[in-house]
């Protein structure tokens, strides 16, 4: 009986761990999936693979096929009102602080302020989060996957090599 109980507990634990592992999203952004005045886009790993196999379009500076192979998902959250932009901004700030996201870059140009954050933990995937802040709006792009800082920096290297 004890053996059965131990085996059952282990099975439940494994199921929970695998459920967490396939949950390749920034959980804090998930709530915007059904929020008013917000456009939420989620592209899963499977869809990225399917898309990567079918298309030959390329992004200058990015080896799409290679990046898509390493990605587990892309989340895009775009606020359509100032109120939701403020809420989204507060959520992003608390996420960055709580999970120790490293600020990678900040760019100020005519289109508004752009922040790029990087987060990597031993157990979870890497997340590169980009926020753009045109006046009264906020868009958040979260790229999740099994890539490292080198892969991100390669995007710049390849672009500069083309120039």
């Amino acid at each position, binding site marked *: 009986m004890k053996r059965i109980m131990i085996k059952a507990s282990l099975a439940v634990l494994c199921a929970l761990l695998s459920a967490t592992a396939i949950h390749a999203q920034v959980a804090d952004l998930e709530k915007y999936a059904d929020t008013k005045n917000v456009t939420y886009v989620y592209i899963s790993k499977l869809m990225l693979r399917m898309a990567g196999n079918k298309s030959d379009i390329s992004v200058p500076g990015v080896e799409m096929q290679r990046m898509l192979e390493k990605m587990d998902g892309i989340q895009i959250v775009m606020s359509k009102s100032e109120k939701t932009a403020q809420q989204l901004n507060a959520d992003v700030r608390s996420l960055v602080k709580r999970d120790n996201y490293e600020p990678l870059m900040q760019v100020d140009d005519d289109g508004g302020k752009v922040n*790029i954050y990087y987060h990597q933990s031993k157990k979870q995937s890497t997340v590169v989060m980009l926020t753009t802040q045109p006046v009264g709006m906020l868009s958040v792009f979260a790229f999740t996957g099994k890539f490292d800082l080198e892969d991100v920096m390669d995007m710049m290297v390849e672009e500069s090599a083309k120039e």
Partner: protein
Amino acid sequence: MGKLNWKELEQIPVPQGVEERLSAKIDEWERAEQKKAKPRSAVRQAARYLSVAASLVLLVGIGWYALQEDESENVALRDTYQNPQEAYAEAEKALSLLASNLNKGMAHLR
């Protein structure tokens, strides 16, 4: 077999000390029985109840977690695009934005 005659039986002499020996034997059996059927200690019983309670909490927890997951999967985990080409176009736009901003940032350092 004839009818049992109690009066004759009472006349049979009882060996000396049989009563004491019998009584001692019965006491010994009783002690042995009590030893065998030792009541569970309070700690053991509490541990038993606690393990049942913990199992129930675990089951309820797993059920609740599964329900929450299902709920969030309905909306947040659902692919926005059903067409890979559309998904690719959006991914391309997003990656393009990331690459261009990384390069903008680096341009100031060069």
